[in-house]
């Protein structure tokens, strides 16, 4: 500790040359805790949030999203549009101009060649680049001159802001990674652990899955920034411990992803050392309702389209299940300020959010009962409704997580009130979300009647997200159970809307289409949305400038952070 403070002093002294008001490195050290530690600082080789966000201190994209989801030019001078001529009329080309005089932390200039190289690096067939979907539809990236980058698309791209936009698609330095293409990518340990960037900080020490130390970038383009001389980026432990270290012991200044009981969080906050901040983007905790029959007796054809579900294909049942849920209470118990009840699977940005389904916000047990009564489902001797010998009995699976288990217990009780029997199951997250076709417990196989998890989409454009529910996306043995249409929803009409959206450029029309698709899904009751989830983090009260953001890296503006005097 001593040693480090001494070092800080030295760094601070060297920085004492500029203006007196805001000097680079004048605020000492900021301590950040991510209870899951980054294992690599090259987000192209690991797409995990922890890697992307820790690397965002160092490497940057052309454009970031701010906390409202608006695009902010970062390395680019401005946002190209059709109006200003940056995007071609036929939507097959977008032209970016780099800011003038941007230097890499090693002092060399950033050029368009670096962007071209980044595209080559991430689309190399043997590289296994985790972010390659950002270059989907990109036919070439061309360096017109040192500061002009041209991205060409194979087909018209109505929303061209994917490549080099947002924290998951940053630009890496050609000089550093030139020998790391394709299969050689993992051999460049040094580059992967300490990428050279244009960002406010440079890596001084990286210990995988443990701790990263950063120091201010002397060549950073904004004078006087960052205010902090060093960053300690620690990992390990769990969310409660991370919250405690910021709000109870004050050892750390910023803690990430604190999804714990809101009661516990607020009682920690009451000590006055730290503050919880929450940002909302597009994450929705939802229940998927299996449209196919998961009965084990079906063997290999279990949970495939060959066998429709005995009762869940009927929207009436799904509607009753949805009506029985008190979403505000779930938000209250499990999420606090970090969650709002929602009736849409596409809750944001505002232009895409439908209001047609908001009736679900109010719990209506009686209404649900009546719905089932009218449909001919009558309570049997044990209180479970029966019709033609079929019992309304469900298995309900989700990943292991305290909040999810509480939600499960609540929902089970409400469903039992309307005469639906529920058996709960929890599965370890690494198995549940793993795509292992050999395991019966993955969320793709969906060997249960209903399952619950959170999904979202990156950036602000829902086109790819809504395409998740095409018929062709249904996981099945033929696709090795890959696919994103978990509930096996299939409608030609829906598929047609997806195609239409991919050809529509007008933002208003796109909004209308997205809403229409959302409503179609909601009214099929194959997805029961529960909570629009925010991302809660905490920062010390002495830390200023935090603008919590869930559209980009949540520490996207660390260059503006400073210590309160």
């Amino acid at each position, binding site marked *: 500790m001593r040693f480090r403070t001494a070092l800080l002093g030295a760094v601070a002294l060297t920085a004492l040359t500029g203006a007196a008001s805001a000097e680079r490195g004048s605020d000492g050290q900021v301590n950040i805790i991510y209870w899951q530690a980054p294992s690599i600082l090259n987000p192209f080789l690991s797409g995990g949030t922890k890697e992307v966000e820790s690397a965002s201190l160092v490497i940057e994209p052309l454009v970031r999203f701010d906390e409202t989801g608006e695009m902010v030019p970062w390395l680019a001078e401005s946002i190209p549009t059709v109006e200003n001529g940056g995007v071609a009329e036929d939507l097959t080309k977008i032209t970016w101009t780099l800011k003038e005089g941007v230097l890499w932390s090693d002092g060399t200039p950033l050029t368009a060649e670096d962007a071209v190289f980044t595209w080559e690096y991430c689309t190399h067939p043997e590289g296994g680049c985790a972010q390659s979907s950002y270059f989907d539809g990109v036919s070439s990236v061309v360096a017109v001159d040192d500061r002009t980058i041209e991205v060409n698309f194979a087909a018209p791209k109505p929303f061209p802001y994917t490549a080099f936009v947002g924290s998951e698609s940053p630009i890496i330095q050609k000089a550093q990674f030139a020998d790391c293409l394709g299969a050689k990518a993992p051999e460049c340990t040094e580059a992967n652990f300490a990428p050279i960037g244009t960002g406010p900080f440079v890596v001084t020490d990286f210990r995988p899955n443990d701790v990263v130390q950063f120091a201010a970038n002397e060549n950073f383009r904004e004078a006087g920034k960052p205010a902090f001389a060093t960053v300690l980026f620690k990992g390990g432990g769990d969310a409660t411990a991370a919250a405690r270290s910021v709000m109870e012991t004050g050892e750390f200044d910023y803690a990430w992803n604190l999804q714990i009981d809101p009661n516990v969080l607020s009682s920690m906050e009451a000590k006055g050392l730290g503050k919880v901040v929450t940002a909302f983007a597009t994450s929705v905790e939802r229940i998927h309702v299996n449209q196919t029959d998961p009965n084990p007796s079906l063997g290999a054809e279990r949970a495939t389209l060959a066998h429709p579900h005995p009762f869940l294909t009927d929207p009436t049942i799904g509607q009753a299940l949805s009506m029985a849920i008190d979403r505000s209470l779930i938000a209250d118990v499990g999420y606090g300020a970090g969650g709002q009840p929602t009736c849409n699977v596409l809750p944001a940005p505002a232009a895409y959010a439908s209001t047609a389904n908001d009736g679900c916000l109010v719990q209506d047990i009686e209404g649900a009962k009546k719905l089932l009564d009218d449909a001919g489902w009558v309570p049997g001797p044990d209180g479970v409704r029966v019709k033609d010998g079929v019992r309304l009995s469900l298995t309900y699976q989700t990943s292991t997580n305290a909040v999810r288990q509480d939600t499960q217990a609540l929902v089970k009780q409400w469903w039992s009130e309307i005469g639906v029997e529920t058996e709960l199951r929890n599965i370890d997250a690494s*198995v549940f979300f793993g795509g292992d076709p050999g395991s019966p417990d993955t969320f793709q196989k969906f060997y249960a009647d209903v399952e619950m998890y959170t999904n979202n989409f990156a950036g602000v454009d829902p086109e790819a997200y809504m395409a998740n529910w095409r018929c062709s996306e249904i996981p099945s043995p033929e696709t090795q159970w890959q696919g994103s249409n978990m509930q096996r929803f299939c409608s030609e009409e829906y598929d047609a809307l997806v195609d239409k959206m991919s050809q529509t450029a007008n933002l208003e029309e796109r909004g209308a289409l997205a809403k229409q698709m959302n409503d179609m899904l909601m009214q099929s009751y194959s997805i029961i949305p529960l909570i629009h989830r925010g991302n809660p983090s905490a920062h010390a009260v002495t830390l200023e400038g935090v603008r919590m953001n869930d559209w980009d890296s949540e520490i996207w503006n660390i260059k503006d952070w400073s210590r309160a005097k």
Partner: protein
Amino acid sequence: MTEPTAAAPLSDPANRPPRNQWWDVLDQFRTHRGALIGAIVFIVMVATVLLGPWVWSIDPTYIDIRARNQGPTFAHPLGTDQLGRDMLARMMAGGKVSIAVGFTAMLLSLFLGTLIGLLAGYFKNLDGPLMRFTDLFLALPLLPLLLVMVMLFREALSARFGPETGVFILIVVAIGITSWMQTARIVRGDVLALKEREFVLAARSIGTPSRRMILRHILPNVMSPVMVSATLGIANAIITESALSFLGLGFPPDFPTWGRLLFDAVDYLQQYPSRVIWPGLAISLTVLSVNYMGDGLRDALDPRIRGR
């Protein structure tokens, strides 16, 4: 045996009918104060857990959301949890599972460990293979092993024995077969030394068959480390059970067990400390009572101590 006559007073040792040695063991056990208290505590706990739900009939999974996070009240003597479920009912329901799992898994692990340890220690040509087998089990990573077991056997067992019994068997077997190795190594070490002792030599020289040698002469002499293993094993099994339920290998998530109640309550340590204390106390009491019963049993089985 003829009926005792008044002419032969029982007080005369020579006339007393030959008495089963287990009566002596029981007598000795009863004079061991720790063992007696341990046994009483244990029986009280088992009785509470088994008979309690008849008296205290609140459903342990029933959610009364308006009564959440309550302290002890008349309606909820141990308070309620974050969803308003009654803690007393949950403690009783959890105890049933934890004691059953802890005891059965401990017995299974003890049986396997003692058997393998005895065989390896006594028979020279079994020693190598059995101990290498033990090394293998010691080296296997626990988590992937458990995940494989769930994947392969859960559905088969559920189909065969019904979901609850199936899960119970799976958990007990999973804990049992991953925790016998220490007992086996310890028993073997002791047997290696014991079989060179004079009394074993003497027994062997009169032609005692191996089976009788092991059961009558060797086994009683390794009882004390086995008893310690039993005590430690039951604590281990109760805690491991809670770890299993996080992997999705255990009982359904709304099904309470002591280990799980304790784990869930750790986050609330500062706000509601009583929620940690109850399951922690229950586990410790169980382990302590088993420890003292084990002590008493060991003393009672030792003919040198008996009657002292």
